[in-house]
């Protein structure tokens, strides 16, 4: 197809360029005009990180073919701060603490700007609805909505401009003060460069060939046709790894690219580098891999079955890790109990869904130091592992952490940095890899799906006498953080309560599913969900208020934990009191008494959502609460 000629006004300047017909407006802005404030979060119009104005209308630029930009007036986030002054809205985002990782923020600022242009008097519920097309994974949205309300009130003269300024700390005491985030201006203006925004002279683009099979033996890989293609600068496979080929947070069971076998769909098998990412993608199709499919394991029961296929030779029973905790005599504990409750809980796999898909840039510096820039949550450990993988001394490996567009544990795994390093070493050129959202979802770790059987024995006064917790998790194809997740799940699972007889077992198993790994709250979320729900059931059966049953069992100052550690100060009773008081909790037995309780419908609630019913100006109204 022939090139397009694009003439448009972009941020107030006339631009005349040629463009490729396959480009999207987002590519044109980022790659050709170096306006990287608009980010790519999903490439499918779902997340809003790429929002811009086209002729004054808010658009997701990943859905606009570049040809549609012809003759239009385009405004990007870079246009909002004129000169060096942030707009009122950007200043309000800064003041309110509305940015965390910052990756969604340029898009969010554009959507909020559109909302204020559409209705400068929009109320809180209307603001929420107008931001509904933009996803944020860090903030929980509350401070973003607060920021838009603050900007609205300053713009309308309800609040002075000084409401946006930093507070003075005349006594020089800054610990405990709501200091505005120092990195917020770079985030609200779109100036901050994440790994996918970085370029280097002579840079190549990496693309990865991924396994279509959950479990298969690799019979052969033939890269010759790909290597022969015009524009291809390098192809790598496991054969290019010079050292010990294995990584993982605890056990190094995962090769940089599949070696002999693939163990999950999406596993890296080979990678290609080219100056043009399109050529690199075409070259992937020329790599011939012959697979011999093997029987695969898709759930924990199959993994535990007798004669189940073995996924890793070192683990013949498919157990990634088992953590036991034992206190007292569990059978005696249940025998002594007045009430025994047993329940099975299950939790699902969860995607981190950080708005920044994985990306990285690697190069070999003039002194031969292999350097990887990426949003890694663990550059220290990655350096250790890569040094062994490429068989170089540790000071010949350098990791630089680029701004992280959300991590939540998902960027602790060295899932792609090894390929970048190997390709930089092979081609002696800088190489960049940017995951698509689909690649990120299919190939990176998830929260461990779990099945927990919890048995709790209690005395009639509410004291827990015995607790048995058995959690089995699907760890997926590789170990990653499974061992640590099982440990934390086990240590914390029974909760901060005094329990004389305890038996906890947490177990992660290998399967051919997407690997499970580190995820904010690391196993403790799954096990404490089980314990805290069972406590509610116990409170109902024993006629106790849910706060009371926790007070009865609470660890106090000087308590001994389930791992026999002596604690000093324990704040649990203070925290329980603070929550009961703060929520104005009405004590009572949890017998599904929602219809009769009198502590609901007060302050601290949002109105229930009824889409579209709330487009009204702030003058018109306090939002109508639908709470009965």
């Amino acid at each position: 197809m022939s090139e397009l000629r694009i003439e448009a006004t972009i941020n107030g300047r006339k631009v005349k360029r040629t463009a490729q017909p396959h480009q999207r407006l987002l590519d044109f802005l980022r790659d050709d005009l170096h306006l990287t404030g608009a980010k790519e979060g999903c490439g499918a119009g779902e997340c809003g990180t790429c929002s811009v104005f086209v002729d004054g209308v808010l658009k997701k630029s990943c859905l606009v073919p570049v040809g549609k930009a012809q003759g239009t007036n385009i405004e990007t986030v870079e246009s909002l701060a004129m000169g060096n002054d942030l707009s009122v809205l950007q200043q309000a985002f800064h003041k309110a603490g509305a940015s965390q990782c910052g990756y969604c923020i340029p898009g969010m600022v554009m959507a909020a700007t559109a909302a204020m242009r559409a209705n400068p008097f929009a109320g809180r519920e209307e603001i929420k609805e107008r931001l509904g097309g933009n996803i944020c994974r860090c903030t929980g949205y509350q401070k973003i909505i607060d920021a838009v309300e603050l900007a609205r009130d300053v713009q309308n003269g309800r609040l002075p401009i000084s409401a946006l300024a930093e507070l003075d700390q005349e006594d020089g005491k800054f610990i405990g003060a709501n200091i505005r985030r120092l990195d917020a201006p770079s985030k609200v203006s779109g100036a901050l460069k994440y790994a996918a925004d970085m370029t280097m002279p002579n840079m190549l683009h990496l693309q990865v060939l991924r396994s279509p099979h959950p479990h298969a033996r690799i019979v052969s890989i033939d890269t010759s046709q790909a290597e022969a293609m015009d524009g291809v600068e390098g192809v790598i496979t496991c054969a290019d790894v010079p050292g010990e080929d294995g990584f993982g947070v605890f056990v190094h069971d995962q090769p940089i690219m599949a070696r002999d076998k693939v163990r999950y769909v999406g596993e890296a098998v080979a990678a290609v580098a080219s100056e043009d990412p399109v050529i690199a993608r075409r070259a992937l199709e020329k790599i011939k891999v012959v697979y011999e499919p093997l029987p695969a394991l898709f759930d924990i029961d199959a993994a535990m079955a007798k004669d189940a296929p073995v996924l890793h030779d070192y683990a013949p029973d498919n157990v990634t890790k088992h953590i036991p905790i034992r206190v007292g005599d569990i059978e005696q504990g249940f025998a002594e109990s007045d009430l025994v409750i047993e329940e099975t809980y299950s939790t699902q796999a969860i995607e981190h869904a950080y708005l920044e898909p994985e990306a990285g840039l690697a190069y070999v510096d003039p002194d031969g130091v292999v350097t990887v820039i990426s949003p890694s949550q663990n550059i220290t450990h990655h350096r250790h592992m890569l040094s062994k993988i490429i068989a170089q001394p540790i000071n010949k490996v350098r990791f630089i952490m680029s701004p992280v567009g959300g991590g939540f544990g998902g960027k602790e795994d060295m899932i792609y940095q090894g390929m970048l390093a190997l390709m930089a070493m092979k081609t002696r050129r800088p190489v960049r890899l940017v995951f698509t959202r689909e690649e990120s979802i299919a190939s990176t770790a998830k929260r461990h799906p779990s099945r927990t059987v919890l048995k709790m024995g209690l005395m009639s006064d509410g004291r827990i006498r015995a607790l048995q917790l058995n959690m089995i998790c699907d760890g997926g194809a590789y170990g990653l953080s499974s061992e640590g997740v099982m440990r934390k799940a086990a240590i914390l699972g029974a909760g901060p309560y005094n329990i004389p007889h305890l038996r906890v077992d947490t177990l992660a198993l290998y399967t051919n599913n997407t690997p499970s790994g580190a995820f904010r709250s690391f196993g403790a979320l799954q096990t404490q969900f089980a314990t805290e729900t069972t406590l509610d059931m116990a409170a109902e059966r024993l006629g106790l208020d849910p706060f009371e049953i926790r007070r009865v069992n609470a660890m106090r100052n000087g308590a001994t934990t389930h791992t026999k550690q002596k604690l000093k100060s324990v704040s649990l009773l203070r925290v329980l009191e603070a929550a009961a008081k703060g929520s104005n909790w009405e004590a009572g037995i949890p017998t599904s008494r929602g219809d009769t309780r009198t502590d609901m419908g007060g302050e601290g609630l949002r109105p229930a959502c009824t889409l579209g019913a709330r487009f009204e100006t702030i003058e018109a109204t306090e939002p109508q609460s639908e709470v009965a």
Partner: protein
Amino acid sequence: MARKHGRGMAACWYGIARTATVDRASAFAEIDDGGTVKVLTGVTEIGEGILTVLAQIAAEEVGVRPQDVTIGDNDTARSPEAAHAGATRQTYMIGNVVAMACSEARQRLAEVIAKQWDVDVDLIETANGEIWARGTNHRMTMSDAVHCAKSKGVVPVGSGSFGTDTTGLDPVDGSGRPWQAYVYGCQVAEVEVDTITGEVQVLGMWAAHDVGRAVNPRGVEGQIEGGIVQALGQGLMEDYQLQNGHTTTPGFAKYILPTSLDVPRITSIIVEDPDPIGRLGVKGIGEPAMVPTIPAIMNAIYDAVGVRITSLPASPEKVLEAIKRKEAETRQHAMQAAE
């Protein structure tokens, strides 16, 4: 439309920093020309606001303002080890080492200036870019103080290293000291359940968390709000699905995440029980913020409609099915009673 309301609560605990292993971190600090401060440490921002937290700590320790602090971070070839960004460890581990490094640099500067003024070093005070000797009229800017120190051949630098007194777990009974600092939390959820559709809306959350000492309370709220909404996603809608190893939720059109329309009003209640070991008394909040959310919501659903959801997520389909099952059981009991 039948909308029922209910409330539920749950508590939690959590360990701070790496689990069942010795955690460690380090930092370098220099009080630089112009009375600014340079801090080097090996790992930092993943969005939680740690750069600002470290700048606040450095500013208060040295006696400058947070905007005078530059954090040179996250480069294994240029900064000392601070291990990783995770495990609710950054404010605890890195915050404490930055305070130690800054304190040492400040002490080096204070000694030079005390000698210059011929006063006891313990009389030296610093704050907001100024240095003075208590009970005297000696006073100058930090900028001048740095110049003065350098003219005497002293560059005011310092370093800090902090390790935890922790152990692994016994392989048989699990005994050990996995952490030296623990935090506790409690959350209350108020929900509305639509008994026609099964949809659950969380209208309000109250979250009380012990963080040791809040360096930046707004940042702590941000962690609590973000944690609660992530947990709400897992509790009510998110579900990564596979079929024979192939995902059927490959993008955000199929993998449903909470948006601004799904989030409750969140009231954070910060409780401070200072850590007795670390210099600053700080602990952490990143991960514990999301631990009690799901059971609090599930207990609230029970309060509203009398069904226990023990398998996540509590999707409208699942909640509706549970409500129908309960209604059928209730009818059956009524019929049996009538017979």
